[in-house]
């Protein structure tokens, strides 16, 4: 015998109470995904930097791959992830420690995206102009 469950409360209008599917959830999802991505890069980045103790040529050879335009686009993605994680992290601290943080957590999320855009666009213009110009030496 199939039983029907009582209807779940739904998000309706500006007074919706569901966390799921709203700014709070996407902030949390974004924080996890960017966090894992940054951590994986961090492990690789410590390894490539460790080549300075092998020889200058070994380090320069591996760092040359970072100057490849395709890898350069990956670096832009990494910076995008770091900027989101940094400012969303500040949003989390405001929600935790600022008395009005929980009330304005959604506005804070849009603030995070605004700050992200303001910082990432100039970086992207600068970084793309570097990676698509010839490498000296």
């Amino acid at each position, binding site marked *: 015998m199939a039983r029907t469950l009582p209807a779940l409360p739904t998000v309706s209008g500006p007074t919706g109470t569901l966390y799921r599917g709203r700014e709070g959830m996407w902030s949390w999802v974004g924080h*996890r995904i960017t*966090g*894992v991505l*940054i*951590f994986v890069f*961090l*492990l690789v980045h*410590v*390894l490539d*930097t*460790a080549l*300075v*103790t092998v*020889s*200058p*040529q070994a*380090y*320069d050879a591996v*760092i040359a791959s*970072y*100057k490849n335009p395709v890898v*350069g686009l990956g*670096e832009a993605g990494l*910076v995008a992830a*770091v*900027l989101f994680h*940094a*400012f969303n*992290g*500040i949003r*989390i*601290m405001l929600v*935790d*420690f600022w008395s009005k943080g929980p009330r304005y957590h959604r506005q804070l999320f849009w603030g995070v995206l605004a700050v992200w855009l303001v910082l990432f666009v100039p*970086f992207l213009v*600068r*970084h793309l102009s*570097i*990676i698509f*110009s010839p*490498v*000296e030496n």
Partner: protein
Amino acid sequence: MTAVQSTPGPAQAIDAPRSPYRRSKPTRTNFELYAWLFMRMSGVLLVVLVLGHLFVNLMLGDGIHQVDFAFVAGKWASPFWKVWDLSMLWLAMLHGTNGVRTIINDYAERNGTRFWLKMALYVAFALTVVLGTLVIFTFDPCPIGADIDASALPSFCPAR
């Protein structure tokens, strides 16, 4: 007063209403509280350290094109950047490892899977932090030897 059971059935199947219960076993320490606090304290510092690192290495000068052995040697000639990079290494590794530990605890449902994933994580943490720390402390900006290409050395080295 003993609880009155109104319906027949196994006596101990369901706890009496409002009987005290615990969500989890009590822990001896406040480790998770301190881990939670550490994520926020280190997070504030990492915003400054990592964004400063990205700005100096990718925005100033020739950006990513300037990065080579001589560039690193130039930075690590100053204790300022050594302390900066060492702090960043330790804080970022602790912050990232604790973050991934949380994710493993959330998604790995079997005890054995959770245990081994975390062991792999802690091994990666230890190896990376030890390697990175050794590199910063043992770095020689002017290595000498037959296999060293002097043109790759920074301009302040005598071999150059």
